């Protein structure tokens, strides 16, 4: 039962890393899109792609939290007390990101648009960094069992934490560029598809290099994790991830974006599973094992049954949402997020905006 619950957590983390990660990555491209004129088309595409799905994508994070605190309550309490700083900062970033995204389509002047856009884009980079840093703290064995039993700063501000934080930002940017290139191609906007294709290839190479260099960081900072990732099941998953990442690059290079969506998701899923296998049998290395951390069987059974029944409704609903999205039936007309902004005093508000 504990393994099934861990499986649910892995599914949730993977879905969040792929779908939520891509939404954060879209914010990264928003941040780096350049001036209002030049970046307007990129920002417009980000807005169009994210609007119908970001809320549902975000819920995966909540899903992970509730499964962990139900199935592995002691681990949850230990993690959230020791890693309170990065998790709090991530939560604050989530407020700014979500609110700014909801607001930005309504900006009427270039100044408003700049302020809201910058908030959205900057928080989109900070949230995955801090969440990644928290993961680094757990994976490198710096979260002992107890109410704030670990060091509140060094537990995440260390080579492994920073590495995984940076990788979370990069991989999100990579995924986002792949997805946005596909969305642009489907919307019949070849110039944007080319722009995102170039970004995807660049981000893919940078992410790959950073991941390989990261192994060296892990070797010196988190030896147990390194050993786990370079032997047995951990190694197999690292290789799958690398292969899927390379395949994605090739697919993007040849402009086959739909299969690239799937291979990029496989790359992320494999590394998540690899992480779990690398620290097996521990949930909080180096001491708390999965079995020790697991709640009573009655709880685990109820959780699995309840989630299973929920999935009967949830899975078809998600399928319906993504089908509508991929058919383009929920997308609004593409419009660049730039010259719409004119002073409210211009007198052409609001009819002219239609």
């Amino acid at each position: 039962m504990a393994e099934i619950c861990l499986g649910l957590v892995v599914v949730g983390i993977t879905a969040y890393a792929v779908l939520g990660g891509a939404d954060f990555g879209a914010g990264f491209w928003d941040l780096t899109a350049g001036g209002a004129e030049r970046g307007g088309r990129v920002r417009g595409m980000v807005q169009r792609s994210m609007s119908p799905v970001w809320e549902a994508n975000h819920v995966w994070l909540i899903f992970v939290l509730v499964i962990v605190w139900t199935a592995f309550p002691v681990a949850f309490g230990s993690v959230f007390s020791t890693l309170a700083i990065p998790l709090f900062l991530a939560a604050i970033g989530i407020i700014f990101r979500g609110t700014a995204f909801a607001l930005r389509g309504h900006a009427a002047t270039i100044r408003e648009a700049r302020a809201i856009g910058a908030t959205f884009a900057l928080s989109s980079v900070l949230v995955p960094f801090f969440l990644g840093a928290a993961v680094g703290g757990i994976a490198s064995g710096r979260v002992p069992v107890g109410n704030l039993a670990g060091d509140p700063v060094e537990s995440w501000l260390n080579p492994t934490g920073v590495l995984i934080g940076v990788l979370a930002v990069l991989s999100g940017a990579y995924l986002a560029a792949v997805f946005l290139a596909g969305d642009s191609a489907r919307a019949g906007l070849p110039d944007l598809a080319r722009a995102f294709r170039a970004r995807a290839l660049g981000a893919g190479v940078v992410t790959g290099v950073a991941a390989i260099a990261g192994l060296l960081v892990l070797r010196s900072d988190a030896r147990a994790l390194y050993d786990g990732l370079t032997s047995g099941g951990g190694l197999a998953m690292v290789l799958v991830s690398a292969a899927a990442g390379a395949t994605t690059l090739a697919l993007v290079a040849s402009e086959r974006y739909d299969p690239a969506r799937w291979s990029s998701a496989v790359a992320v899923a494999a590394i998540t599973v690899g992480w779990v296998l690398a620290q097996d049998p521990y949930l909080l290395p180096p001491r708390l094992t999965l079995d020790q951390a697991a709640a009573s069987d009655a709880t685990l059974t109820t959780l699995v049954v309840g989630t299973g029944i929920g999935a009967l409704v949830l899975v078809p609903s998600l399928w319906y949402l993504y089908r509508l999205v991929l058919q383009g039936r929920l997308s609004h007309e593409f419009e660049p997020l730039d010259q719409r902004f004119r002073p409210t005093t211009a007198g052409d508000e609001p009819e002219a905006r239609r």
Partner: protein
Amino acid sequence: MADAALLTLATERATGALGAGGGPDALLARRMQALSLAVHIPIVCFGIAFPAMFLFVEGLYLRTGEVTYKALAKRWSRVALTIFAVGVVTGTILSFEFGLLWPNFMATFGEVFGVGFALEGISFFIEAIFIAIYVYGWDRLGRRAHFLAGVPIVVSGFTGSFWVLGVNAWMNDPTGFAVVDGRVTDPKPWEALLAPNLGHELTHMYLAGYIVAGFVVAGVYAAGWLRGRRDLYHRTGLVVALSFAALASAAQGPVGDWAGRRVADSQPVKLATFEGLVRTQAGAPFTIGGVYDADRGEVRYGIEIPRLLSLLAHHNPNATVTGLEVAPPADRPPVNVVRLSFQAMVGIGTLLGLLGLVFVLTWLRHRRLPRSAWFYRAVILAGPLALMALIAGWVATEVGRQPWIVYEVMRTNQAVTRSDGLEAGFAFLVVVYVALAVAVAWLLRRLAAQPPATEVAGDVEEAHA
């Protein structure tokens, strides 16, 4: 049953899975949690009630073909999506805070109540999926499909409330586990989540959602009404919102009575705190207003109505009502905060019920809206008042639960994090929420400034009636 629980549980208290000895800042942590809830709960009211309202208006459109209805439903759904987006992030903060502020509570009891949040999470998922399909699907899905896409939003709004209140009901009347040597064992999640308090808490809160959302929305159109905006679009907005609010307010009376009697049974000390009743007595009076004086152990300067409390709490004017004296002073909640909040909730709730009655009676007798400008001024005021009653109700029940996080099983100061950086976090959070409030107000004004005709292609009746 409650008194028996008092005695048996008194010796069996949970020390916490992360070790005994809590953190230094339980009060600050409570304030942080309360702040976040005070921001989130009003948003939840709109998540509960607004979908039913815009779906009702869309139903009017489908029946009559009048595009004005469509314009209104579309506008409301867009506002609801924005509010939902803010609710997504403020709800995320709450789930983070459970761990950040109360790690020992989560570590100790997560296996007892956690499943409730897992099921709530799934409801939340469904809500997020279908509100996106509904709002972005206007004019793109078939008319029937579009209307049907709205139904899961209403249903999941209810099921989400169901599970969250299941957890809260359990915190107030915990069952479904055993405590052995300070350790929590033998969790029975279903028993915990379907606790006896769930029925009234859920009904009470669900109706509150309709009252708050209904009166706040009605207030917007009442303000327009006073400025002469009385066309079909504004009239529909006013009548629909006011109808939902009035019906819910009327139903809230008996539900409040039910809730009060349940509290009298399951949490007698909390009920005594609501009333500032120190001595256990038969034929207990109900005191309106006044201040509780802890030194004298009585409420001063209030208006005392003999036997009314016994009548309300047990439906018998001579019934015995438990007083605060049964709990040692350290185990009593802060009386004045709780009592004032409780009285504010009951007082405002009564006024809102009367306002709804005026509307319903005028409508039934004359088939029109009231003519007096005072009615519309009262409706404008009713929105903020309903919000106050909502928050006051939560303060009454949650501060009234103190000093326990799990009633009579775990103390709040045992549950709290040992982190000593809460001041900085609290200050930061206040700034963030102020910014959030400003941003949302800005956005809603901007949405309201767009004429209804921008929502639909057809003719919207905007001629002043």
